[in-house]
């Protein structure tokens, strides 16, 4: 067995991680290279090769597979940089994508924007109106054809779309998930009119009830599919030229990968893959550390992301929101709950202190970066408080200007409030911690769990300065700061370590109790599809698991709950067991007695998730053990640090992470400097370095 590579292409940086047969881990970071991201990918691979003193060709020849994640498709959608596509739907219902169920005005907006009705708009038209067309056809909820497809008209409509500049076509008809005959016929007609044109059918991309989300999903998939195919095709060709024999895999937002050749047909499934990489990495680490419930928090300069792992499995969602539209993508639930270290502290019109949601972004960045930022940020407050070293970040490569930080806090916060600069900075730091606790709690509670049963994992450059405090606010029992060899490329590590996942679903609304044979047919069809898709990947899989699930709801209630269904022969008793499981999950999510069973239970969408286990089990390697618990050998020095307004500045030891060893114990207050981040161990809290080099923080 050779190397497994994970490559994570972000908007700013491309991270790569390589794991060799002995579990040794390499990592590299290089700037991303838009518009052709493959240049950065190859550079990152070169950097890995350099570390073991071999050529790119030698590394690739020895590579079992490459797992690749990219935000390029999502960025293209969000920025509106997508080619013109056509949209064909049922007569009378084209405007679904413009009406957006009315909620397109506010869907997915952060909570502070929801009350500002006057500031809301719908997004620009998803498809230009001249390319959004109707054809005469109608199928009803039973799947019965009420009006046959008018093929002459359809052909005319296709020609007009092409003449109007459509470079690909999305087809999404009412009730197509019940009967896909008209959609398939439309694809044939399009193929006759424009051979080779990229076409997506909603019955294949998202066979799920609720037409607006299905339209939006199919359209967005069509908008990014051809570009993804071109990019992956070129990347794979150049990797093959350079000697790669194993497969190139692409990460999906479901937390598993598919081969590059399979990905473009359902391109929408690859969006958000970088966000999920971090959660998958956390899942791997949690398995190694024996943590079953984890809040994975990833705090960067501009975003604060939170994902959950419950009973060892990431919490999944069946839908996400892009450009204020619901999109059906099986995904790991990752929520953006804040604005990271660049979050701006400001005074509102009532002269009340507020933190975020606006961020100083990468440019100009916090005031202390000296790049022209004048507004005080969390980072500026942390510098003033002594949490961040005056010598700068990234081992001094990012110098910080304490005077600029002080000036920003003084002019915008301290002077108007009549506070000292230090007191204002302490208030900013503490308010950020408390609010993060509130928002994290919301994420956990809304998934139906108790925060006290969770361990917080803190990733990213800006998280570890706050994690002990926000974990305390939310009531979590322990904090883990992963600081081993892949700390700075955790998402890429997650990619390298992930399995292959193929998901297929179909809506078939039924009322419980229903015919077990029909349910069995649904699952059998999905399992056949999933097995075939897994086989098509051409991978050597150690094991294949098929998971059945069904989205259920009570008759008149809004909450749909994804309910697992046992494999094997399906009879009335098995369905009854599934219904009981739905009721149990519903009660956990919404509270005991919340379910209105008198209105009946509906089975809506059936789903099979196929997991192909790759024959790699990368675990983080152990680090050297310390002779005893005393970390004095790693002491860099001491500096006054203020972590609590009431105690003021306290002379605090600062440790060098590079010199810490497994078993070292640090009692707060203490600061640990890592090249990529700074960890705060507050008073009353104890941190220990575990065998893998992670910091484990618990209350005394």
């Amino acid at each position, binding site marked *: 067995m050779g190397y497994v590579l994970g490559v994570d292409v972000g908007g700013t940086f491309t991270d790569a991680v390589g794991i060799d047969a002995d579990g040794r881990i390499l990592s590299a970071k290089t700037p991303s290279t838009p518009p052709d991201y493959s240049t950065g990918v190859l550079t990152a691979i070169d950097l890995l090769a350099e570390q073991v003193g071999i050529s790119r060709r030698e590394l690739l020849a020895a590579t079992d597979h490459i797992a690749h994640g990219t935000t390029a498709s999502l960025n293209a959608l969000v920025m509106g940089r997508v080619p013109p596509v056509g949209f064909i739907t049922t007569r*009378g219902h084209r405007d679904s994508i413009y*009406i957006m169920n*009315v909620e397109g005005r506010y869907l997915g907006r952060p909570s502070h924007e929801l009350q500002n009705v006057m500031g809301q708009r719908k997004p620009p038209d998803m498809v230009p*109106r001249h390319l959004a067309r109707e054809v005469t056809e109608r199928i009803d909820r039973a799947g019965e054809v009420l009006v046959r497809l008018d093929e002459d008209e359809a052909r005319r409509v296709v020609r007009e779309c092409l003449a109007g500049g459509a470079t690909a076509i999305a087809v999404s008809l009412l009730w197509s998930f019940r009967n896909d005959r008209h959609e398939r016929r439309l694809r044939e007609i399009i193929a006759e009119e424009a051979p080779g044109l990229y076409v997506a059918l909603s019955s294949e991309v998202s066979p799920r*009830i609720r037409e607006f989300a299905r339209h939006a999903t199919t359209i967005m998939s069509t908008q990014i599919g051809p570009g993804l195919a071109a990019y992956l095709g070129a990347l794979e060709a150049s990797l093959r030229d350079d000697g790669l024999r194993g497969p190139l895999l692409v990460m999906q937002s479901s937390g598993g990968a598919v081969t590059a050749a399979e990905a473009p047909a359902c391109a929408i499934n690859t969006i958000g893959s970088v966000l999920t990489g971090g959660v998958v990495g956390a899942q791997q680490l949690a398995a190694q550390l024996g943590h079953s419930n984890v809040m994975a928090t990833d705090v960067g300069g501009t975003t604060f992301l939170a994902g959950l792992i419950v009973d060892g499995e990431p919490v999944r969602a069946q839908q996400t929101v892009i450009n204020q539209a619901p999109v059906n993508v099986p995904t790991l639930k990752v929520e953006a709950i804040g604005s990271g270290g660049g979050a701006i502290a400001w005074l509102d*019109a009532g002269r009340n*202190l507020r933190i975020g949601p606006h961020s100083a972004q990468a440019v100009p960045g916090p005031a202390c970066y000296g790049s022209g930022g004048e507004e005080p940020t969390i980072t500026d407050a942390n510098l003033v408080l002594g949490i961040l070293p005056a010598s700068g970040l990234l081992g001094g490569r990012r110098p910080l200007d304490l005077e600029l930080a002080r000036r920003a806090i003084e002019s915008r916060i301290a002077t108007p409030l009549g506070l000292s600069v230090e007191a204002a900075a302490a208030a900013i730091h503490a308010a950020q911690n408390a609010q993060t606790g509130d928002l994290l709690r919301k994420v956990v509670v809304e998934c139906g769990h108790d925060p006290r049963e969770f361990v917080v994992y803190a990733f990213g450059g800006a998280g570890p300065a706050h994690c002990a405090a926000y974990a305390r606010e939310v009531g979590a029992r322990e904090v883990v700061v992963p600081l081993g060899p892949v700390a700075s490329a955790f998402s890429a590590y997650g990619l390298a370590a992930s399995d292959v996942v193929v998901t297929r679903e179909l809506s078939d609304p039924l009322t419980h109790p229903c015919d077990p044979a029909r349910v069995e047919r649904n699952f059998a069809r999905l399992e056949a599809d999933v097995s075939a898709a897994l086989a098509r990947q051409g991978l050597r899989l150690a094991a294949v698991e098929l998971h059945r699930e069904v989205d259920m709801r009570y008759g008149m209630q809004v909450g749909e709950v994804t309910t697992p269904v046992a494999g094997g022969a399906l009879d009335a008793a098995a369905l009854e067991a599934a219904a009981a499981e739905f009721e149990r999950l519903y009660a956990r999510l919404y509270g005991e007695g919340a379910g209105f069973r008198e209105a009946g239970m509906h089975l809506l969408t059936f789903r099979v998730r196929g997991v192909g286990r790759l024959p790699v089990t990368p675990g983080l390697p152990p680090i050297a053990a310390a002779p005893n618990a005393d970390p004095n050998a790693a002491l860099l020095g001491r500096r006054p640090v203020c972590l609590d307004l009431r105690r003021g500045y306290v002379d605090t030891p600062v440790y060098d992470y590079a010199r810490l060893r497994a078993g070292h114990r640090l009692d707060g207050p203490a600061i640990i400097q890592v090249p990529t981040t700074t960890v705060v161990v507050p008073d009353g809290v104890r941190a220990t370095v575990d065998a893998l080099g992670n910091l484990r923080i618990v209350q005394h």
Partner: protein
Amino acid sequence: MHFAIPGSEIFNSRPVDPTALARSLPSALRVHTVTPEQVAALDPLTYEVVRHRLWSITDEMGETLRRMSGSPIVTESNDFDFTLNDEVGQEVQIGLYNTMLAGAVDLAIYWTLQHRADNPGIEDGDMFLCNDPWVGGGLHQSDAVVFAPLFHEGRLFAWTSAICHQPDLGGSAPGSMPLAAPDVFSESLPTPPIKVVRKLELQRDVADMWVRRSRVPLLVGLDLRAKVGANAVGRRRLLALIEQYGADTVKAVMKRMMDDAEQRLRDKLRGAPDGTWRATGWQDQAQLGDRATHKLELAMTKADDRLTFDFSGTDPQAGVISCTYAGSRGGIMLALLPTLAGDIPWSAGGLMRCFDIVTPEGTLNNASFPSAISKAPIATAWLIGNLAAQCLSQMLDRAVDSQASVQASCCGTWNTAVIAGLDQRAAQPAPFLSVVMDSMAGGYGARPQADGIDTGGLFCIPMGKAPDVELTEMLYPLLVLWRREEPDSGGAGRQRGGVSASVAMTPHGTALPSALVLSSAGMATAQNQGLAGGAPGNLACNLAVRGSALSALMADGRLPDTLGECGGEVEVEQCFSGGVLAPGDVLYLHCQGGGGYGDPLQRDARRVAEDLASGRVSARAARELYGVVLNGEGLLDDAATAGARDALRAARREGARLPCAFTHTHVTRTLAQPLDGNLAQGVLADGTTRVACRHCGTRLEDDDGRLALARRDAPPAAAGPIVRIDPATFIDAPVVFREYFCPGCFARVHCGLLPAAHEDVVAGLRVAPLA
């Protein structure tokens, strides 16, 4: 004139002086409060941390209610809300859902403190249930509120509440909104606050009494539990917060949140010009069979940092459309929250200190018991919201920095349609009742710098949602032929109003006629007014096709795009209408779009061409309302457009009557301070300032402070495609399309589609008599 029944006036709740209320309580009810010094002593950190926590607590209450509720009205359309109140009931934090309810919840708590404190007492672990719109809590009896006192160490510390619309609470008609109720006794019985929970335990006798009145007892029982659950969540988390920060600190933050909201609203008001703005609105038909239109008058006066909403001149209560005092207050909040408080935290208790309401009793907007009031929230209260928004917008339009909050009126009512029958699609037929939710897809009003939001929804439920067509067809035996944005439904203007959607549906899966109940408004006169010369959005329009040839058409491979293609007879439905929807019939509902802003002849012709290409404006409207002409290739013809616009202006000049005092004086310059998109203060040669036309400099204000404007009255059809059905179909009073122009350049500065007797006020100024 209506007179209150003796003994009923005790149930009329009004805003109170919180200090006096606290003093009036029996000594056995000890109340927790803090001094102004404690509020002032709060440090910024504690304030921000606790404020944010209180927000997250109320958010969790709302989420609990939404998830536990069984009403599609709650779960799909978000017609509910929740509050956190201080010890005397002032609203500290409200939810973002049905914003009208904010004007009613505190009234119920004041009343409870006044009338329940000594008997049966207000104790820890109690929760009260109320659906009496005179007492407050909701705007009609279908709004049922559960509110709970929170005690800490034996002192009344705060209140929480949860409220939502119930699908049926009894009365003579399913849905509890009978179309011709002579009085409240045909509707759901109003229930003043009654203890439904004691010692944190649901009282079975009270709960049974409550569900027994409903045609859907299971759903009502579930919602009752949802509201109790939401209050329980609020209680648990508030007590934990008090535990962590101390009662005095938490209370000080609550008080300061309201003080802060009040202060910021006062600051904002102080920055706006003083003056009085007037708006008059009309409710077409008060009940089934009525052929009148009913007048609501609002004069909003802003003096320094205070607003007064005066409803004097409003018609007497009538039919089922009147609202109680709570409805007036809720209507004002509907407008005030988004217009003035988009950037101020919704500590409604503080915001409501900034205005007074003046209203006679026994009127449409302050109905006396036992007036029928079941349609209040979607009739008069909503109209009050639109009128208040008009007045506020005209005030804010006078300052450039507040123009971002100026918006012409949005859709002016909920276009109610209820279909009930037998679903025969399954082996076992089952009764169904469908409240058509597609009426969510109204249009938003235009702004000085932006078009209105197309199918932006309803202004009073900022987070409303329309269901997917597939969900409708899954749940009910209906087939939706189309749901689409209707061209020309947004009011024409320099900025166009947002278009609204229509829906057409036919029974599918039931062989029996279904019962059909329709209840709407704004079919003869426009509730969705434009601003600054912009036209109103479309009149609401409900049609039914009887005995269509649909099944033959569909079998033949055809799907109709229009009602005309369906075959059969098209029947115009009145605002109030009860009947059947038989197999083969088609029901067509079209709710209201938003009003426009400014003169449509001043709209950038390229944008009209874009609207035409995208189907938001028809060729006819482009030509007749906007004066925009396209050439044979469908491209903008600049020369022909200029000619068409000149011709339309010339027609205005010829068709309009001039004001008697008009003298063609021009101002030397206009001042920076505008009144709106057309009007500004201008300086005359002698140095005096008078209102003038911003476009041509013509002096418009006469020496008596009136606007000397040209006026043209035309039949309703002259308004263009916004009028599809002759208003005479609905009301007896003649309706006109009335336009006011600058007599110099004939820019349109005001327009309306209203009863001929309507008295106009333009940008807050009276209009001079015509020659």
